[in-house]
């Protein structure tokens, strides 16, 4: 087991390295000029040749690429995520302050997706190809098609229109101000959670359909066990394994999905900072945030793999 975890972590390290290369290539080497990104095409054309060279040198952009890469890697390792061009707060401070809100949204949405998705999966797997199954299938496909940020805008609009309600604008921490905090996270978590629930329901349904046909489930039925217990104790635990794996992938998608959704709700989380960095073309902040999100995604995947290995000996001993 430990060797499995060690191997998985080593592999994760390699992946993080590869990810850092891709981020660096995308943000620094692709044809887009960082100065154009910062000043905009018009501002760029007003700069003189000397000014351009000056800014490039000041930002460390005229060094050889590998020097730039090493410098970046060194500062990341030291926990220095740089500073926005537009605000005084350092990016590291911003991540700490706003990241917790996004993390809360992500975790809450995963919990919600299980609460909604699993019962739906059970119902539709136990009565496959009936009207109920059809309705569930249609709704899960519908939820896959609806963009979360649009639903978010509609919810904000609806609440404002019918109840004159608007969630607080300022950030509120879970411990200092739990009620305000809840109002901030519940909307995005609901939208993102229902979106995931659709995937969970579909995956749970097909996994359960497969498991129900296995011999050991038939044995359990044959020995006269109550059919609810057969599902709950025998079939469900095995059917949940692929659902857990999927949930890990979805958690990564939620982190990305929370960017437009937080923007739609006006939630002051990290996703909203990302949206802001993008719209301001804040290259360096973007570079670090993209890297951070990818690393978090890699870590989530490792955590999921280890969890699955703990739960499923077949994987552990391979």
């Amino acid at each position: 087991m430990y060797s499995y975890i060690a191997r998985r972590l080593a592999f994760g390290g390699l992946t993080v390295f590869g990810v850092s290369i891709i981020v660096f290539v995308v943000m620094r080497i692709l044809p887009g000029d960082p100065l154009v990104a910062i000043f905009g095409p018009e501002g760029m054309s007003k700069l003189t040749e000397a000014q351009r060279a000056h800014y490039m040198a000041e930002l460390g952009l005229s060094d050889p690429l590998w020097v730039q890469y090493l410098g970046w890697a060194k500062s990341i390792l030291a926990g220095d995520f740089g500073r926005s061009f537009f605000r005084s707060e350092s990016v590291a401070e911003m991540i700490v302050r706003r990241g917790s809100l996004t993390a809360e949204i992500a975790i809450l949405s995963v919990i919600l997706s299980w609460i909604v998705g699993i019962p739906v999966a059970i119902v539709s797997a136990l009565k496959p190809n009936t009207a109920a199954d059809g309705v569930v299938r249609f709704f899960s496909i519908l939820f896959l098609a609806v963009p979360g940020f649009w639903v978010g805008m509609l919810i904000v609009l609806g609440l404002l229109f019918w109840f004159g309600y608007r969630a607080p604008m300022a950030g509120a921490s879970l411990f200092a101000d739990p009620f305000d905090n809840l109002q901030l996270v519940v909307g995005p978590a609901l939208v993102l959670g229902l979106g995931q629930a659709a995937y969970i329901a579909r995956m749970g349904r097909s996994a359960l359909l497969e498991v129900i046909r296995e011999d050991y489930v038939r044995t359990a039925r044959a020995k006269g066990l109550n059919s609810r217990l057969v599902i709950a104790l025998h079939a469900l635990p095995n059917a949940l394994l692929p659902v857990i794996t999927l949930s890990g992938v979805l958690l990564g998608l939620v982190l990305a999905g929370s960017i437009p959704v937080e923007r739609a709700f006006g939630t002051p989380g990290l996703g909203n900072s990302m949206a802001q960095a993008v719209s301001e073309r804040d290259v360096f902040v973007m570079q670090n945030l993209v890297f951070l999100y990818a690393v978090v995604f890699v870590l989530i995947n490792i955590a999921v793999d280890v969890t699955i290995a703990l739960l499923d000996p077949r994987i552990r001993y391979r």
Partner: protein
Amino acid sequence: MTVTSADSDTATASAPRRLSVLRGVMTLARRSPISAFWGIVAALIVLMSISADVVAPYPPLKSDFRAMQKPPSETHWFGTDQIGRDTLSRVIHGSQTSLTVAIGAVLFGTTLGALWGLACGYFGGRFDMISQRIIEFLQSFPDLILAMAIAMALGGGLGTVIVAIAITRIPFGGRVIRSVVLSLKEMQYVEAARGLGASHVRLMFRHILPQCVAPYLILATTHLGVAIVIEASLGFLGVGIPPPNPTWGNMLADALNAGLVPPWWLVFFPGAAITLTVLAFNLLGDGIRDLLDPKLRGSV
């Protein structure tokens, strides 16, 4: 001998193949009328976007200062925005961007990925190993974040957005097709062809590739929907196709920036258009999947 038999092969194969496409459509309609219905909806949306200039009641960029921010009415079915542009016309023209980007990204990204997967599965060895690592690195990013970063680095525009979304599609094509090829490669008919002295290129494209068409089609239809949502998100976040071009994402972003309380019609209609289009493609894809691969019926 090989040359002539190959030629006669293609000659006889083309006629039944055309027939089988038609038969496929008929079977789809008979076996799952729901998918066929959504297929028609998808076709209508495509038709609408092609003939946008004729169908749309107003030019999408024309402001009418006598009708600013008006709710839906007889003259403007979907209302007008802050500077008096007709929302219906903008939604119709928006479908052009959405579909161009989605089809472009899938044709480019999913196809490139599929060919890459074909080469990986066929050649195996070190090439495959390195390719799989690169694909894993690419998959370590949530789609939207990678697309955002690329779109931002390259600067906005139609081509950029297509490239950005296409790159996020590559790993999926690569993975799926590779696993299909891995199992096909061991089949006896491939071995027989190899025994007859067929070249790598001939084996790959003439014997293995045709078997990859079904999984590719399933993948491509699903990816159309995903690409539409990513394009809309990019537009919403301001790194898509720059305004004033009417795209569904841009329209939603405009609505959000319209003030504290955006008018409901500016929010509702563009989003509904996204939902309807993605739904149509997904359900059509579901039908195609059921038709081509009954084993997968109802799975994710």
